[in-house]
């Protein structure tokens, strides 16, 4: 093992031998035992690690209250986006499987609703239905007295 290799291990895993890679631990320990520079490096890193362990973040009094009390807006999705995200979900294979089928039905439902309310100038070709009042008038004029029962 070279000093550069040992330095790399120290840089990546710190001064604690327990954190060194198992496969290299024995080699590293014997290298430290036989190399003054390695021992110096290890000691320096140990001091850095010790200082880092003592470094604390200040407390943030009132931050939790501030975050919890902040005004939560409605989700920033409009109706179209909500429908779209519902129809094409990011997760769950099951939902992904049947939601496209529902999406495909939407034009069909839309067409039925539209067709129910608008004729688009297409008339119903049933003469009997159109002249039903004439039919009634003709029936009323028929003389049924000649009929033999």
């Amino acid at each position, binding site marked *: 093992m070279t000093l550069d290799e040992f*330095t*790399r291990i*120290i*840089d*990546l895993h*710190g001064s604690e031998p327990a954190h060194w890679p198992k496969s290299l631990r024995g080699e590293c320990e014997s290298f430290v035992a036989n190399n003054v520079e390695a021992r110096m*490096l290890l000691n*320096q*890193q140990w*001091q*850095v690690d010790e*200082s*880092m362990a*003592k*470094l*604390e*973040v*200040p*407390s*943030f009094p009132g*931050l*939790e209250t*501030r*975050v*919890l009390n*902040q005004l*939560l*807006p409605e*989700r*920033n*999705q409009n109706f179209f986006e909500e429908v779209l*995200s519902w129809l094409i979900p*990011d*997760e769950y294979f099951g939902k992904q499987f049947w939601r496209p089928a529902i999406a495909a039905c939407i034009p069909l439902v839309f067409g039925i609703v539209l067709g129910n309310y608008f004729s688009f100038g297409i008339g119903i070709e049933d003469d009997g239905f159109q002249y039903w009042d004439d039919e009634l008038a003709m029936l009323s004029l028929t003389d049924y007295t000649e009929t033999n029962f």
Partner: protein
Amino acid sequence: MQAVCVGSRSAYQRLVKRYLKSISHYAYRLLGNQKDTEDITQEVFLRLWTNAQKWNTEKSKLTTWLHRITHNLCIDYLRKHGRMQTQDSFDDEAADSPSTSEESNEETNDKTKLLREALSALPENQRSALSLCHYQGFSNKEAAAIMNISVKALESAIARAKRSLREKLTTNI
């Protein structure tokens, strides 16, 4: 999280209580001052509420996703304010922190002060990598995902950061 997705405020509150400390500590380690940390932390949880549906449970853990939001917000903030290294400091706040005020050993105080200065002087990617792996307890793979870099790049950043801290601390002690 599923409950937050459908708009449950009580579920949101539970998540805030669970992740607030971790998120605020990470933001503080990147930004180096209390006011900005509080603003960013508030924004992170606002994003959690508004973008809950964008979180992909299969892709990342919730804590990783939240740290990634924090990381991006901090980096944006630092770039917008034109300082890639925190100018104002850990120092003033360190004086107020209970751990420091309790320290009786002057030498330890000096070391801590030196370390804070050395950390402030690190480039943002090195500080972030060190913070995620050393303090936040993420694996290299998770930290790399949070920072959106490769594991090799992350390891390189950590190595450079530690080397830099070692040099600064040992030359000053």
